[in-house]
């Protein structure tokens, strides 16, 4: 074959073989910042997907994982200086907080939501601002009450208690045996709020009314909630919980110090994955003794839950917005998202109802199956009002958490509620 023709042929063949449609300039980088996942394997999976994404999109995709507590300073500095990562993970209802700096991704979110059975309500509260999707919902970190089946059996309890009064009696007996219930009430971003807010709602208390304009915290329900917790704490809980952050209850549970605690699936998953290191008093692997109750017990006003939603936002300052949108579409393609979802084993559940039917649920251990439809139940900060930036302010100042903490430390319930009310008033009305 003539040399030129040969080169031409191999040249075209080469392009076809590479199957790359370089839509973006050579050397374009897409930088995504996420938290360091509670499940290390999930991050490993994402890192594995990065080169695949790079090939598919024709640009270099890089993930950066930082401590969840460090997300906000990075976001702040990036927005204020107008430069930084292209996509940043948003927890809770941060899209409301940073609304003016985020790109409208409705054109990415709407189609995916429609094709996957719709997003959970928690996302229309947290990721949608003013009718526009400012974040692409990614997943929900659901929680449940993890408890030791054997310890509950020892005091004759076969089923997880249905009401708070029952739970308190159970806890009393457990604490008498030296294995109390554990709950964090310190200044940490996950466990204390996911307990405090639903607990408040269970008793009929709420921060604001439906309009989100009036502070209604000082109500009979709130005072009762604080009073109940004061008694519950003394009778049934590990009193060190005031100093606990998100990790203490995991450790205490794994060491056999507490018999029940509200947490994500990480207690079970880690116990199983390190079954030769985490054992109970008898030397048996602990994971076999762990059971999950999908929701906390019922209060006089109902049974509520609060989970941590997380989503991805594209920053307005990013020069690669189209690339970022294409990446999000790629990330949520069934094949790719599915792999990440399965690796999580229920720690993070999907953002749409479709993933409830994923075959993974049939294969994983029974205690983990409670998380399957969990995300349907969750409300959002500021309930029943809108999950606005003011609700975020109340959350970051730990007002509800501290209301309970103060009550538990000895302040009169009415005073603790009054204090919280005055703080909330400053936020909502000041």
């Amino acid at each position: 074959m003539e040399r030129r023709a040969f080169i031409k042929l191999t040249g075209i063949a080469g392009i076809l073989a590479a199957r790359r449609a370089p839509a973006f300039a050579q050397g374009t980088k897409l930088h995504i910042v996420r938290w360091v996942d509670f499940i290390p394997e999930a991050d490993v999976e994402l890192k594995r997907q990065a080169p695949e994404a790079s090939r598919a999109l024709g640009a270099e995709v890089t993930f950066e994982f930082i401590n969840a507590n460090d997300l906000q300073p990075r976001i702040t500095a990036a927005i204020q200086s107008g430069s930084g990562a292209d996509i940043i993970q948003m927890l809770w209802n941060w899209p409301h907080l940073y609304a003016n700096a985020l790109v409208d991704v409705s054109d990415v979110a709407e189609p995916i939501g429609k094709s996957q059975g719709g997003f959970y309500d928690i996302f229309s509260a947290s990721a949608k601002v003013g009718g526009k999707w400012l974040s692409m919902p990614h997943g929900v970190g659901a929680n449940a009450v993890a408890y030791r089946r054997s310890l509950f059996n020892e005091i004759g309890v076969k089923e997880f208690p249905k009401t708070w009064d029952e739970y308190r009696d159970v806890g009393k007996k457990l604490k008498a045996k030296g294995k109390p219930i554990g709950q964090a009430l310190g200044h940490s971003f996950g466990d204390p709020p996911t307990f405090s807010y639903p607990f408040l709602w269970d008793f009929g208390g709420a921060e604001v009314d439906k309009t989100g304009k009036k502070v209604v915290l000082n109500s009979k329900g709130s005072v009762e909630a604080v009073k109940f917790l004061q008694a519950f704490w003394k009778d049934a809980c590990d009193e060190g919980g005031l100093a606990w952050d998100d990790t203490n209850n995991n450790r205490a549970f794994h060491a056999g110090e507490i018999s029940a605690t509200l947490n994500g699936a990480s207690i079970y998953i880690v116990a199983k994955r390190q079954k030769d290191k985490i054992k109970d008093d008898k030397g048996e692997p602990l994971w076999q003794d762990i059971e999950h109750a999908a929701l906390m017990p019922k209060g006089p006003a109902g049974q509520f839950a609060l989970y941590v939603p997380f989503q991805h936002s594209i920053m307005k300052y990013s020069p690669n917005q189209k690339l970022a949108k294409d990446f999000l579409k790629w990330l949520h393609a069934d094949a790719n998202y599915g792999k990440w979802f399965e690796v999580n084993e229920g720690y993070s559940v999907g953002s749409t109802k479709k993933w409830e039917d994923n075959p993974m649920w049939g294969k994983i251990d029974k205690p983990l199956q409670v998380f399957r439809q969990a995300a349907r139940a969750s409300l959002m900060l500021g309930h029943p009002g809108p999950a606005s930036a003011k609700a975020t302010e109340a959350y970051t100042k730990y007002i509800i958490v501290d209301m309970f903490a103060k009550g538990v430390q000895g302040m009169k319930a009415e005073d603790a509620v009054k204090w919280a009310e005055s703080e909330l008033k400053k936020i909502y009305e000041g």
Partner: protein
Amino acid sequence: MVIERPWKRWVYFYIPLTVFVIGTLFPFYWMLITAIRPDAELYRSWRAVNNTPFWTLNPTLEHFKDLFAKTTFPHWLWNTFFIAVISTGISLFCGLLAGYALARLKFPMAGALGTSIFVTYLVPPTLLFIPLADIIRNFQLGNTPWALILTYPTFLIPFCTWLLMGYFKTIPKELEECARIDGATRFGAMLRIIFPIAVPGILSAGIFAFTLSWNEFIYALVFLSSPERKTVPVGVVSEMIRGDIYFWGQLMAGALLGSIPVALVYSFFVEYYVTGLTGSVKG
């Protein structure tokens, strides 16, 4: 010589000193034990019968190995060292010159300038980092060590200046006068006579600056993003703490390894450090 009875020596000297040493170094012992303790023991309850908080019968180097194999810890060590050395160098350079000028030269606004350099020391970094992020972006220094190398001197220079200023004031003016009668310029006298005498002061300021820069957290967190570029405090905290699980073994291993280089530097210069600070405080 002040004569002292043996029992007094024990009560007033040996025992208190031992208590100080134990109290100061106990946490390090604790960190060391944690770093070589196998995971199974780390998860044990405090009331367990075989709980041995103060020693372990199964020491393991797995945490140290994991630190090097599974994270980019060596990069962090190098980055932190590099940044610390250069920012210390810059701060010493500026501090030396500025300290000399403020101590020795008469010029208008000397007092005001000295005070304002010191006032900048009072501004907290937790406020400054936000506008600083802006400047870093303008100079396109984001995610490079230079972002830190140029911002660390903001809290290192005032200290170095003040320390060296005091130090220079203790050096008798006559030395310079003699040198200049001998034909040296003021600048030459500064370089060849004064600075060599001030070496202990320079060393002590340098050591202090090195420590502060090694220790810094928030600027490093905000201005660096790639894992290979991070510094030891930021890297260890990001990688060893995943959500609700602390990898205590590796955390403590990282903490110990992250202090060794500085400790080595200190052990060489501690005597200078001790004598060096003397000069500054007389001023």
